[in-house]
């Protein structure tokens, strides 16, 4: 257990699927040789295949205290990078249409906006994903080189590039498939929760750039931090796939859509837009309690009251959404 733990909350009701976070992360951290296919932050459409495809069914994580088997995802699962024939079209005067090559077969949000393909009424929402900086990281446990460590001062999980030998046991072990292998360097890489930025008092790049303002960052055990309030006080944010046993420190406010048919008296649970079973699949059975709590807060405001939880979720300014000043690491909690 680390002394303190940075955490992130993402309110899925506000995600636009614009991928600004993805690009912010990509340009900052994975713009080097061998990292082309890597997205330390990705936003996938749910329901959907995800990236790498079917990652939620591949394996990894814990069961009864034991690491679970998992194959390595392949490049076909991540999607191979492709190029366009611009030269031929633009400079060589060939009248071909601009075409990608090799022919794309999968990608980082391949089934964007496809959703449930429900005949009556389609539904989908966006799920941004980063490494969860788990409290009980399967990746760390699986590394025979002890190249992965959890920083004592802030709980951020990082890979020592000097010690890593590219064995990839970590990739197999992570149930979220949030470690990537760089074949050019022969080492594995992962999200570092922007610790070099946090140490300077700047919030994570994905959070800073997000126009949806749905990311909240702070130290979980700091009672003043928004993540503490959302996760531990208001209890309206849950980790993804809690049953995988790694105790993630990225939490989600589940998509809280209005009832399907415009019936104001109705509870969302009576007429859910996103089937409850699917939310239970993603966030565990506790998601029902979270929806009850969110509905109660909504009711409060509809009746002219004030909801501290919803005010927080609106997250008007950076002061509300983040508490990352470096001295926070040293505060007495």
């Amino acid at each position, binding site marked *: 257990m680390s002394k303190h733990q940075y955490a992130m909350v993402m309110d899925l009701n506000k995600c636009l699927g614009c991928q600004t976070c993805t690009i912010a992360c990509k340009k900052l951290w994975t*713009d080097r*040789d*061998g*990292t082309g296919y890597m997205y330390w932050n990705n936003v996938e459409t749910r329901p959907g295949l995800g990236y790498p495809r079917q990652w939620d069914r591949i394996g990894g994580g814990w069961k009864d205290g034991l690491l*679970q*088997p*998992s194959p*390595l995802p392949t490049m076909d699962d991540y999607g191979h990078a492709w190029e366009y024939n611009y030269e031929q079209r633009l400079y060589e005067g060939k009248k071909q249409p601009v075409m990608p090559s090799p022919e794309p077969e999968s990608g980082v949000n391949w089934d964007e906006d496809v959703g449930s393909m429900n005949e009556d009424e389609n539904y989908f929402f966006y799920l941004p994903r980063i490494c969860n900086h788990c409290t009980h990281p399967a990746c760390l446990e699986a590394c*025979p080189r002890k190249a992965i460590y959890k920083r004592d001062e802030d709980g951020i999980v990082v890979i020592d590039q000097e010690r890593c030998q590219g064995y990839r046991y970590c*990739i197999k072990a992570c149930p979220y498939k949030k470690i990537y292998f760089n074949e050019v360097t022969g080492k594995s890489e992962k999200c570092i929760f922007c610790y070099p930025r946090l140490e300077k008092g700047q919030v994570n790049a994905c959070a800073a750039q997000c126009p949806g303002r749905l990311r909240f960052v702070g130290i979980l055990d700091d009672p003043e931090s928004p993540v503490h309030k959302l996760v531990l006080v208001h209890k309206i944010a849950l980790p993804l796939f809690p049953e995988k046993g790694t105790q993630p420190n990225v939490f989600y406010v589940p998509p809280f859509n209005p009832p399907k048919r415009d019936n104001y008296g109705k509870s969302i649970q009576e007429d859910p837009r996103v089937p409850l079973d699917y939310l239970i699949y993603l966030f565990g059975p506790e998601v029902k309690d979270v929806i009850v709590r969110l509905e109660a807060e909504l009711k409060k405001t509809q009746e002219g009251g004030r909801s501290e939880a919803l005010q927080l979720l609106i997250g008007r300014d950076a002061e509300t959404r983040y508490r990352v000043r470096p001295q926070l690491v040293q505060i007495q909690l």
Partner: protein
Amino acid sequence: MRTRQFVITVSVGLVLSTVWAQTGAKPAAGQSLPVPASSASADALLNGGPGAWSQIAVKHVALNRTPPLYDTDEPAPPEIPSLDVRAARSGGKLLFQLSWHDPTRDAVTLAEVPNTPPETRFRKVPTEADDRFFDAAAVMFPEKSDINTIAPSLQMGDAEHPVEIYYWNATRGAMVMQAQGRSTTKRTGKPFPASSSYQNDRWNVIFELPDLAAGTTVAFAVWNGSQKDRDGRKYFSVWQVLE
């Protein structure tokens, strides 16, 4: 009570004999490795192919498959039972020729990384595959080769008995490593001369080491990429004593 004492005596005896066998303080005759001086030069041995080595007798070294390391690992049947080793001294060098049967050649040529910083280039060198592992082999010997001390642990030595590992990888080339026990291996960044060829389902790899005194113990290892070998998931020999 008597039965119990008997059991204890027997098991202590077993432990002692195991330790004895492992330390190599008195190796069995079969575990010694002849090292004739060769009339061929070190370069000829390194590059010369079978001709340069034909005079030197082959020692068949039995390989063991490491037991499964993790419950989550796929099983790997023993496919490479032995290694053919030839050793020779020439020009102040010690050369080993390792040859083994492996029906799959697990090696690729990785794209060369240009010498310019990636941020100055539009196209970066891609990761072509993330799930392949490559064939490899290694020669390990104690860093302090005092022939009178016990041989280090076969698991990459230990704190008192650090080891040097000359590691060759079919894709990533040859590099010298050091270790002081399992999971402590580190790359020194130093290459060493090696050559390799693959023909008729066999690898033939030649290692050039600094000269090691007679009586030094050496151990060998082979990794089979198609069996997803890496780390301690490999084939290994027990210590052999150089003659």
